[in-house]
């Protein structure tokens, strides 16, 4: 058996229920359950989070603006069963990949084409699509044990430390 660092899973984080999920980074995990747990431990050490999604990096199809406008996404004539794909796009120069919605398609390439079309007149800087079946979501009824504990660790917040006050007092005592 070879020695690996396990496959990569991309992690998407939703801060509050009224905002879309955004790409946070990735974790290495042997399977989806461990990926979800690792995703929580790596990315939800500080509030806020209301939902976490993970998907194997290998299940994600990606396209850059150059590929979309340059016609690199060729017409795909494969037919197959139409399935749902989740779409993530980076729409502004300084933004992060954000969940936009879903499209239905019979192949990865068709999904990218549909997604690019769904972005309207603006070409996204980066586009990702992943089959909905390959995405694992944190369970809503698990939100409390998954996400609430981060709120109980104020010592991780730099605002918990009053350094400037202490230094100011020392300077005053020294008569600076």
């Amino acid at each position: 058996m070879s020695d690996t660092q396990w496959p990569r899973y991309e992690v998407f984080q939703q801060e509050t229920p009224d905002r879309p999920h955004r790409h946070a980074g990735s974790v290495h995990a042997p399977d989806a359950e461990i990926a979800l747990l690792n995703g929580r431990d790596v990315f939800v050490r500080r509030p806020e989070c209301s939902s976490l999604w993970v998907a194997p990096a290998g299940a994600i199809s990606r396209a850059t603006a150059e590929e979309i406008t340059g016609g690199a996404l060729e017409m795909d004539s494969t037919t197959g069963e139409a399935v749902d794909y989740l779409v993530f796009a980076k729409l502004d120069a300084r933004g992060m990949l954000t969940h936009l919605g879903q499209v239905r398609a019979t192949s990865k390439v068709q999904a990218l084409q549909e997604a690019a079309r769904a972005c309207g007149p603006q070409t996204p800087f980066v586009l990702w699509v992943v089959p909905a079946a390959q995405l694992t979501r944190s369970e809503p009824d698990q939100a409390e044990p998954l996400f609430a504990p981060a709120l109980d660790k104020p010592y991780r917040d730099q605002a918990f430390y009053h350094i400037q006050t202490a230094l100011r007092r020392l300077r005053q005592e020294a008569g600076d």
Partner: protein
Amino acid sequence: MNPGLRASLADVLLALADDELILAHRDSEWTGHAPILEEDIAFANIALDELGHAGLWYRLVADLRGEDAERYPDRLVFHRPAGAFRNVRLVEQPKGDWAFTVLRQFLFDSAEQVRLKALADHPQASVAHTAAKILTEERYHLRHLQAWVTRLALGTPESGRRMQAALDQLWPLARQLFQPLSGEAILVEAGAWPASSALATQWQAAAMDFLIECGLTIPGQILPDESGRQIHSAHLEPLLSEMQSVARLEPQGEW
């Protein structure tokens, strides 16, 4: 609550606090040495949670004993000798290999869940509230540990072998978790503590079911070591010696 009951309640909560503290200490020894980076992060989270729990219980002990909640916990942790600690011998054991650590954590967390659920409607609001708070974090721990115990027990022949070896060593020690705590009797009678023996049955049944499903063999019935929580293995003194070494350089000092 009358003074006698208060004193007994403080004693049993001290035992819970000591368990969390010593286990957290052992867990923290893995930082920087875990099998993969994600587990350094995950296990540090578990250790942080356990330390936090210890702090919560120690504060309650301070309140019950009329001591300063800000200072008393550190006095308990850093200035008591080994003989005054009331943790179980399970948590003192050195961290061992990853199988030992994971299984020990599973046994402890699954036992804690049973006890915390029973404490969640304790007549003393502060106890009930603390138990409920800790339970939220413990639900996550149990999910994490169950996932790991399953995967290690059923992964490869080597991981299975290591898990069985760990269980053989840990199962007899785990029984001490539900031996009646000293001071428990009058509390149980007053409805101020869940009887350990009842919890023992509940925990053992669930734990055994789970471990057997993971393909592990529960070690045969052996005479349990009934010596109480005031008796410690040879591991506690060196552990405390290290833990208390810096604080004792300046016993009255601020750190």
